């Protein structure tokens, strides 16, 4: 049982944790809060990390759980506060608005479209396509069977494909 976590590896994982958090929350500030909570949790749980195993995947797992817990709590708050909490999946997704530094319009468009995916599909897509985790690892990170991973991935990609094929009218509003 490790008494400590490898600090250099932790620092090296930070940019990816931050990016994953942004995709989960859709908000730069909430993302950094989530990373901070994840790091605190990781240190609390450091005895559970198996030295030599993939630290990054372990951190993604913690982040997923922290996020799900916080999200569930927030949903309860919303339910108490108002009845029209259903803003659709893109609610609070502000990342695409802060356009990437690139001139490629398609890049900010793809970000906007990722924001329209349901959170569970967005997560799988992110881990498979961008972080290049193996499907078994994704299944472990999210705590769902591999069949669920595959069907979410398939649906995410199909939606993204249709969105690029026929640009949605709301796109203009978002950008």
């Amino acid at each position, binding site marked *: 049982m490790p008494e400590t976590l490898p600090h250099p590896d932790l620092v090296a994982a*930070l940019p990816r944790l931050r990016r994953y958090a942004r995709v989960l929350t859709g908000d730069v500030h909430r993302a*950094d809060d989530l990373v901070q909570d994840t790091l605190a949790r990781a240190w609390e749980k450091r005895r559970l990390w198996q030295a030599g195993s993939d630290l990054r995947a372990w951190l993604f797992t913690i982040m997923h759980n922290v996020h799900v817990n916080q999200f569930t709590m927030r949903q309860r708050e919303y339910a108490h506060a108002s009845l029209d909490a259903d803003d659709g999946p893109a609610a609070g997704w502000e990342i695409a608005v802060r356009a990437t530094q690139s001139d490629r319009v398609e890049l900010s468009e*793809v970000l906007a479209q990722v924001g329209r995916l349901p959170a569970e599909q967005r997560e799988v897509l992110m881990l498979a*396509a*961008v972080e290049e985790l193996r*499907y078994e690892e994704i299944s472990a990170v999210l705590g769902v069977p591999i069949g669920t991973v595959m069907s979410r991935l398939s649906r995410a990609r199909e939606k993204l494909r249709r969105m690029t094929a026929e640009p949605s009218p709301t796109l203009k509003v978002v950008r």
Partner: protein
Amino acid sequence: MSANMPLSDEDLHAYADNQLSRERAGEVAATLAREPALAARVAEIRRQNALLRDALDPWLGEPLPRELLSAAAGSAARIRPRWLPAALAVAASLVLGIGLGWFGRSEMLELAGTPVTFQRQAALTHALYAADANRPVEVWANEEERLVRWLSKRLNFPLHAPNLNGLGFALVGGRLVAGNEKPGALFMYENADRQRISLFVRKDGEPSRETAFRYAVEDGVGVFYWIDEDCGYALSGHLDRGQLLAIARVVYGQLAAAEAAAPKR
């Protein structure tokens, strides 16, 4: 032939994501060659992947906020009782730095001809200048370009000041320092907690094929040092080993990238 096996949806995704065994990937490729519609789906998945990475990879280069760096390291400090409280550490390093500085200077003078080890020289130089609140460097970072040009000229080879903003350390500036027989260069960095680290560069050592990182503690100053051909680099500071190593890796990576990009000399 197994190549005639029908392809499942999972096969297409796993193939596009490079997750199949070599054998199975070969079978899928053979089928795709005969099925343009399926091949187009794979191409579409790969196009999406590339697009997503192009859109999201630039985020990885953004500087990290200090709160996150301390959340990654601060907890590490908390579980190590041997760490001094920050204020005490700063005070101690000031006293130690000034003491070391003078001691170091006389030692270097006395030992002319019998040079101190590279790592010790780096630690002493760091302690001497990092403790200087007002004049730690000769040329400040606002003239970075001039600084690098000047030091490159004096050391007679192209230098690079690594960018450590992503790790929370900003360049303070640099100065010319005593090497062995030729001059050396010192780049100093500081974080928001006013902790200073410095990169010492010297090119008059013995040529070496060894590029492994080595670590030493010289009078309380941690030093990661490595030799790249005939050029010695040392990163010194009052940080713990893990923090210093993480920074040394970044420095090494940036210098290697700069060298790869430079025209052959």
